[in-house]
């Protein structure tokens, strides 16, 4: 279990993490969702001991991260966003290195190495130098190094960034397997589909603060069953919102070139909506319809798209 209470981290005048509380139980994946620079990685770095929190407490598997740091670290696995591998050494040698760092040795270490190599699909490549691996294979090995010692809690900081579909699937399957084995996982990402697929609980973080949290269903309910429509074109009379509101269309974001709306049953009402918009605001050149998702919620909460927000 990972429990964070009132975690705050400041760098000079910048508050990177602002009074965050969260709890990831055993067998649970807790997703931290937010754009780049939102404070996800700083939160992960505080939990893993890479940076010291300014305020607040962190407990990992019942051990306080400050006063019982060695035991807390022994209970924790970290998959950092940046690779942490010796390029000149083989996959096996890298695993021996990281296994030793977590006090594994002898047959137990070798057994675990073979197990995690199988889990990430690299058992046949274990003797090759890492520098010969593809980016996806390196990501998988990076992940394997973190789970060698069977940690009770695991931190994954955007582990699938820049990963090919095959490697991504390997990683996601391995994470699900860990969850089923009872590991408490904190998973940061800005990929909505990953978060929705993996996470039991989610917190949306922006500018260092949690702006929404709960289960995926809880968060979806905040958006309702509405679909997200994104319209592109050249728009004017942007202040005139009464007509749309009278049609029960929720305006998330509107400017001269783009409009984001939440609407019930978008597929059947699309023609009606487009007629109104063409008459009042101007010509629409492109329409995108998405089912209600976490992206919609993020836009609703912040007025920005996740990928735009960074």
């Amino acid at each position, binding site marked *: 279990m990972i429990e964070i209470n009132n975690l705050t981290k400041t760098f000079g005048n910048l508050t990177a993490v602002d009074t965050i509380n969260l709890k990831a139980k055993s067998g649970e994946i807790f997703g931290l969702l937010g754009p780049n620079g939102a404070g996800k990685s700083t939160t992960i770095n505080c939990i893993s001991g890479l*940076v010291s929190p300014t305020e607040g407490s962190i407990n990992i598997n019942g051990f306080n991260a400050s006063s019982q740091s060695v035991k807390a*670290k022994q209970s924790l696995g970290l998959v950092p966003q940046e690779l942490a591998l*010796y390029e000149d050494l083989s996959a096996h040698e890298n695993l021996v290195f990281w296994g030793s760092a977590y006090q594994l040795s002898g047959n137990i270490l070798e057994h675990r190495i073979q197990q995690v190599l199988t889990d990430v699909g690299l058992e046949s490549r274990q003797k090759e130098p890492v520098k010969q691996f593809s980016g996806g294979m390196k990501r998988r090995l990076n992940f394997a190094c973190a789970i060698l010692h069977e940690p009770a809690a695991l931190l994954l900081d955007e582990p699938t960034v820049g990963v090919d579909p095959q490697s991504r699937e390997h990683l996601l399957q391995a994470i699900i397997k860990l969850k089923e084995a009872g590991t408490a996982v904190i998973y940061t990402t800005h990929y909505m589909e990953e978060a929705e697929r993996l996470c039991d609980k989610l917190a949306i973080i922006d500018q260092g603060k949690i702006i929404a949290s709960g289960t995926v269903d809880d968060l979806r309910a905040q958006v309702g069953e509405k679909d997200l429509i994104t319209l592109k074109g050249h728009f004017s009379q942007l202040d005139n919102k009464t007509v749309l509101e009278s049609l029960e269309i929720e305006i998330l974001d509107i400017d001269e070139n783009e409009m984001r709306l939440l609407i019930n049953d978008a597929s059947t009402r699309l023609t009606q909506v487009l007629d109104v918009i063409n008459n009042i605001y101007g010509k629409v050149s492109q329409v995108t319809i998405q089912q209600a998702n976490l992206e919609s919620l993020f836009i609703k909460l912040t007025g920005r798209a996740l990928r735009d927000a960074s």
Partner: protein
Amino acid sequence: MSFTKTVSSNSIKKLFSEKWQLAMFLIIPIMIGGLFSLITDSKGQAKPVGVLLITDHDKSFLSQLLIGGFNQGPMSEMFISKSVDSQEAKLLMDEAKASVWLEIDKGFAQNFLDEKPTTIKLVKNPSQNILPQIAETAVDVMADGGHYIQLLFAEELKQFNDLLSGKNVSDIQMASMSVQIKHTIDNLEDQLFPPQIKAVKQKAETKKSTGKSFMLLMFPGILFMSLLFSSQGMALEFWKDKSQGITTRLLSSPSGLTQYLNGKIMAGIFVYILIAIVIGIMGLLMLKLSLNKIIIIIIWLMLSGLVLFSLMLLICLLMPTEKSASVVTSAMVFPMMMLGGSFFPFEAMPVWMAGIGQYLPNGYMLQKFNLWFIDDGLLNVLITPAIIATVFFGILWFINKSLLAKFARA
């Protein structure tokens, strides 16, 4: 396997996978030492050698005597004499293929004996300094000497010249000439050997000349040059590990950075022992060093290497980037080698330079090493290694306590 051992074995594996780096630790110092030895003579003394052109128009006993001065003793080691005519001499001097040209005019001996002014022409190569100056001084000394000989033995020299010129000299004349020379010397005995000047033999308490070959003098320098290169290389490994995310991730592991540092030190000890063995074997074969010396060399180099490693590491960790760490440590290594006795033995340096060099870390350790290695003095078995170990542990304590975690987080 403990984490320290793993770090150590990984570092060694990486070192052997980068064979050129390993070779650099050994080959460059050996190459430099070898080249320096090659430019010295077999006795290990580097001396300039130049070409002396001689044009003797007089071909007399006295002119031959003058030329003989350049073909004897230390002068003969500095100059290769070559008899040439004037034309060839001018040509060679124009092409700067000789250091000095000595031309003796016809009538030189006769004028000398007749106490008339006479000329010796000395042409110096302007592109050289030392050898022409030596030749000029030698000619000056000979001219002065000639003047006094003329004052004392003018008559005898005339007779001797006649003898060599083929004029008949009887036995009586020869005996008379010898007696006359003896009388002159006897008369001058008081001036030449005044009784008030009493020679007192006293052993000067100057530093005794080592009498060792240049290669032997260079040998410790080569060892310390190797230590400097390898220490720099191993300290920079910390930056390579950081750039690969290793040190940062280690902050989240229970083993932490202290064990990592210990592992790197163990790898360093292995490298220093390896260097000492390889270069020591060369010493064994080329300089006929005893096996006991090799064992002490290994221990000494291990300690000295660790001090240099901790110094280099300190600098590396204080630098903001890998590149700046590399530039600054390289900028340190070369002057340290030059001043610290690795390029030139302290004995071959100007006093002020040796004074600075002997207080640089590598220079100090080398100087102490030389006290035992070259001068066969007592090995400061306790004091110097204790100083070295104290310095090492002090720097390391500071690195572990204050620098390493900051470095990993930065």
